[in-house]
């Protein structure tokens, strides 16, 4: 009996957005099918992996991932260049962690200088992230946006508490913007609407439905992403037709499973591969549920995810 594949085609389509400059440009989104369903429709843009780099040394990262960057993490630009040239990063995510009042309270001016230096040194797209302190982020990201004017970089994250200032800065400097809300499809939709009502072009928006780590809320992010993607495609909801971001590394590398030595918990097995697996499994689950852009830390995890993506293309 010949099998008739029950294909599904949708009326909706995710906006295709380019980030970065010249040869380094990366294209996200553009698909009109569920993730990797190229067997039933168009799925042009491949998901991209950005390596996370911080403006201050990663003292808060566990040894297994800090070690990899031991020789370069003293300076964010050296660190980023290493990720671009030696690790094959599709993009660099610069997290301005040191601007947080509890982590050194680095000024907006100095943060902007780091952004300028970074842009002069790298070819791949730059994603500029605040320290997730809603108030401080407004001043830091406004200056950072000016430093990145017309470089087609990405800036974020705009949240309910501070989106007006950050979206205005992105608009004034012609940047792409990440909008983040907390694990709820309606909150994501609402924030996207508020931002576009300011006159911000929806084709420049990336949605972050908020990430989480394997075993620490993964199922929430996974399902919110699936629901957002279904609403965008099947219900043709234009307010959710944005590429999605999964900011994986920062959630993964703080849980116990990526840190506890094997000597303490023999039944958990080898720490090195356990940590890498934790990040890679988390990231690949979010790819399957809808992420177009990942922010990751460990090169081995990113490498495994790349291989997985390549295999996903084989149909």
């Amino acid at each position: 009996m010949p099998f008739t594949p029950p294909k599904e085609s949708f009326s909706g389509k995710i906006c295709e957005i380019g980030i970065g400059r010249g040869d380094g440009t990366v294209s996200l989104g553009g698909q009109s099918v569920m993730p990797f369903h190229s067997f039933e429709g168009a799925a042009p843009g491949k998901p991209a992996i950005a390596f996370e780099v911080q403006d201050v040394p990663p003292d808060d990262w566990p040894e297994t991932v800090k070690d990899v960057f031991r020789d370069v993490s003293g300076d964010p630009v050296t660190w980023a260049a290493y990720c671009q040239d030696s690790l094959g990063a599709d993009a660099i995510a610069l997290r301005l962690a040191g601007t947080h009042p509890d982590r050194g309270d680095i000024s907006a001016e100095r943060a902007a200088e780091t952004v300028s230096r970074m842009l002069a040194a790298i070819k791949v797209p730059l994603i500029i992230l605040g320290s997730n302190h809603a108030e401080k982020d407004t001043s830091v990201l406004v200056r950072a946006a000016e430093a990145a004017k017309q470089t087609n970089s990405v800036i974020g994250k705009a949240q309910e508490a501070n989106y007006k200032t950050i979206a205005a800065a992105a608009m004034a400097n012609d940047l792409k913007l990440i909008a983040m809300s907390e694990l709820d499809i309606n909150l994501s939709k609402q924030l996207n609407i508020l931002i576009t009502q300011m006159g911000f072009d929806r084709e420049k928006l990336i949605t972050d439905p908020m990430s989480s780590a394997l075993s620490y809320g993964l199922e929430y992010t996974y399902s919110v992403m699936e629901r957002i993607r279904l609403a965008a495609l099947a219900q043709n909801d234009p307010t959710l037709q944005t590429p999605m971001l999964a900011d994986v590394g920062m959630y993964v590398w703080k849980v116990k499973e990526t840190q506890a030595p094997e000597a303490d918990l023999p039944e958990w097995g080898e720490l090195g591969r356990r940590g890498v697996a934790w990040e890679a499994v988390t990231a690949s689950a979010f790819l399957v549920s809808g992420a177009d852009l990942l922010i990751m830390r460990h090169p081995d995890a990113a490498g495994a995810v790349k291989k997985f993506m390549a295999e996903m293309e084989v149909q």
Partner: protein
Amino acid sequence: MALTGVEIFKLLPKTNCKKCGQPTCLAFAMKLAQRQTSLDKCPDVSEEAKEKLGAASAPPIRPITLGTGAKCVKMGEEMVLFRHEKKFVNPCAFAVEIKDTLATADAERKMEEAAASEIDRVGQKLRVDALYLSNDSGDPARFLELARLASTKAPDLPVILGTVNPDAAEGALGTLAGKKAVLYGANAGNISAMAEKAKAAKATLGIAAKNMDELCELTEKAKSLGVEDMVLDSGARSAGEILRDNTYMRRAALKKNFKPLGFPVITFANRADGMLETLVAGLGVEKYASIVVMNEAERWKNLALFSLRQNIYTDPQVPMQVQQKIYKIGEPGPKAPFLITTNFSLTFFIVSGEIENSKVACRLAVMDSEGLSVLTAWAAGKFTAGKIAQFIGESGIEGELEQRELVIPGYVAILSGAIEDKLPGWKITVGPREANGLPAFLKARG
């Protein structure tokens, strides 16, 4: 397509005799439509109705059990494509492959590893669920030897036999009599003989097709040969093929009620690269496999995959939660520390695990917060000073304690003053933020 309650009702006797345990035939029909009861509960239903309803009320994906006893695995019965619609029903089984070309010592090691893989995770016992024995040598005698080894080294683990040779199948099935094994390897060339062997041993038949067309032909053929229990392999091996075929199979079964594909799916994730194998196995967990076969079951990999399966298979409406009560960890005396947290399973098991690590006996009050984590419950108004004070006040714990002191999670330090106001005579101490700070915190208190 499934029938609606009203369509089912038309076929029932309409006497409202209640023998089915429902107040009316209509109520029974509604339960049937929601698959919350079975047709055999009504003794008076006509043969004609049985035939019509039987076909329509059978679950779209046939329920099949792999193995017997405490470690058996239920498969099939899934009702949705996306986990937010409704809870995924039967968590997929992880199987580790053991080839009959391996040296006996290596095969033994893998079996023992699988048999000892069980760990406790958020209150559930999780393990490598099955052995996949493969007849790589092509030699029936070696295959039989491997099956015998499995039945001594890992006697209660369910087994999947992978062979295309009906003679090898018969021998190995002989050692697994009554154990509800899967006989995997029925293809276009051997299906009649394999179907006979599976039927004789009451085993499930694993179809090894090259593509979806052939898969449908083979399941129809097996059915005509009298085989009822099957697991399906479309031949997909790359991650992309697995996603495509598993999606087609699930959609065809659920949305088209397409019977030739209404069976559990077996996915082969085997890769030489252990990390990539982990990710492809993860895809199997997410996208519709009932059995995932892998080369190796190392502990780091198991932990990640067990956790993923637990996440994907939790109920999207009801977080995993534990009972509200005051738990004793160790043998706390009247001076032992007294702490409070919420009843989200993950929170409870992390906190109680760290208290155990500290080796300091404690009482841990677990307050019902509808299964939310500490910060989520606080943000949702379910872990407030008033509610905490009421819970502690009504618990009657005072009588057991020498001093009235309660340790609260560091993340809700802001509540300490308000709780003291509402619980006169109590001292509120702010604990560390993360639970992994608890051992040092508790030890320092002596």
